């Protein structure tokens, strides 16, 4: 099992570590719902060393990325970032990714899911082979990744970062000195809060982690595990690979068509054209809330009038909304907000209601 440079830091903080995407990762340091509240109200620090990080260079880098993924890379200005998907020829989701165009316009940076990194690299190299000059350079082991998320993120990070963070827009990145060393920092995240993700050259992870902890102590910054990260991303309506999206789903039914631009050719395009022409697949991803004691969980069936009409992708207790939340694929005719459905726990049913996604949106 792989471990990040910060594993001993997590152990010293008393974290519970679990295998995730091939890595030994902290799932929690404190009760999960308390950690989630800390990120919504103050700020939290995340070790994301497990995420895959890939640089793309060469004269054909843009053309290669256009073929690889669903968003329009040509429309990304230097220093900006887009969310996208890698699909199979059948239009099914192989991964969801972030594509960064370098601030100096001299290449790209792609961040992928830990559990999909090996397959993504295989797809990337196979696709790149069709271009004369597209270099795929896996930097996962050369870079660490640390995120701060929460409303106090900027004031904490600015204490030891020389870049003007106030001028850094959402889904933009820049190079700046962090702890006196040049690093890349993006205003991105997976919690629905303001925050930054810092790409840390190997060997400097603990220095950056400690700088955050020292700078943020008075503001209530604490380490946050993958358990709360899942709760936070789910509240914010962000999909998690293996739950809302996987090799059996396409971006249209997942409600991610905003990240698919049909102005260019990409792997899976022809299959998606057919899905769009057919008016969808007959099912859509919806949000559900349920007020009962039992939380809907991945795999639970959704029923209406005794008929199965869907299945749960993720379920969580939402500390921010104080209810159970779930995402589920449901037959299209039952996806209007306000529709009442039920989920099945073994032979018992619990009421739930379709709601618009995201469940939570921060005020800006």
């Amino acid at each position, binding site marked *: 099992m792989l471990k990040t440079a910060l594993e001993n830091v997590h152990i010293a903080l008393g974290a*519970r570590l679990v295998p995730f995407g091939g890595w030994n990762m902290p*799932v*929690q340091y404190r*009760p*999960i*719902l308390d950690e989630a509240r800390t990120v919504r109200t103050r700020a939290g620090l995340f070790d994301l060393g497990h995420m895959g990080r890939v640089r793309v260079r060469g004269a054909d880098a843009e053309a290669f990325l256009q073929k690889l993924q669903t968003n329009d890379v040509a429309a990304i200005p230097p220093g900006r970032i887009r969310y996208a998907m890698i699909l199979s020829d059948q239009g099914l989701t192989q991964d969801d990714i972030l594509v960064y165009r370098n601030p100096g316009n001299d290449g790209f940076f792609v961040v992928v899911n830990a559990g999909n990194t090996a397959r993504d690299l295989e797809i990337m190299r196979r696709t790149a082979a069709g271009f004369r000059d597209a270099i795929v350079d896996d930097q996962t082991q050369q870079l660490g990744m640390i995120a701060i998320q929460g409303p106090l993120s900027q004031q904490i990070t600015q204490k030891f970062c020389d870049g003007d963070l106030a001028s850094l827009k959402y889904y933009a990145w820049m190079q700046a000195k962090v702890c006196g060393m040049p690093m890349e920092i993006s205003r991105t995240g997976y919690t629905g809060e303001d925050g930054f993700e810092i790409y840390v050259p190997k060997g400097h992870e603990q220095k950056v982690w400690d700088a955050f902890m020292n700078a943020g102590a008075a503001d209530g910054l604490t380490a946050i595990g993958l*358990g709360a990260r*899942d*709760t936070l991303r789910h509240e914010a309506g962000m999909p998690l690979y293996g739950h809302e999206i996987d090799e059996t789903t396409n971006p249209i039914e997942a409600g991610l068509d905003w990240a698919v631009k049909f102005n260019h050719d990409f792997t899976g395009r022809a299959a998606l054209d057919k899905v769009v022409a057919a008016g969808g697949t007959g099912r859509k991803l919806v949000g559900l809330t349920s007020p009962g*004691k*039992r*939380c809907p*969980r991945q795999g639970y069936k959704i029923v209406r009038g005794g008929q199965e009409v869907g299945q749960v992708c993720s379920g*969580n*207790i939402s500390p921010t909304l104080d209810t159970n939340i779930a995402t589920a694929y449901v037959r299209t005719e039952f996806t209007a907000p306000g529709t009442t459905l039920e989920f099945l726990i073994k032979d018992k049913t619990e009421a739930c209601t379709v709601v618009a996604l995201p469940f939570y949106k921060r005020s800006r």
Partner: protein
Amino acid sequence: MRPNDRKYLKSHEWCKVENGIATLGITDFAVSHLSDLVFLDLPAKGASVTAGESFGEIESVKAVSDLYSPVSGEVVEINKDLPDNLEWLGSDPFAKAWMVKVKVTATSGDLLDAAAYDAHCAAESH
């Protein structure tokens, strides 16, 4: 060592049999791995349970787990205050946080004594 007046399943339930009545619960190891407990579903008095099969469910913030019965028989008593006091599972898993009492008709063949169960937990932690 954990209490040696009872037997354990590898799935981290314990049972203590006295005068043909088994008291069932889950171990400190189970509680520490479940973490952040939010809900406990126990069978009704009079229900029958089967050794090796589920007799209830325990839910944490992130997951639901089945509770496996070390014995077969009829549920004669449940700890009805426990679902509203799940913190007892953390503070006193082997006494105050007992779950159900069962009039035993058969016992699982997979029960471990305390020493063997301790060794099993040590192995699972690595």
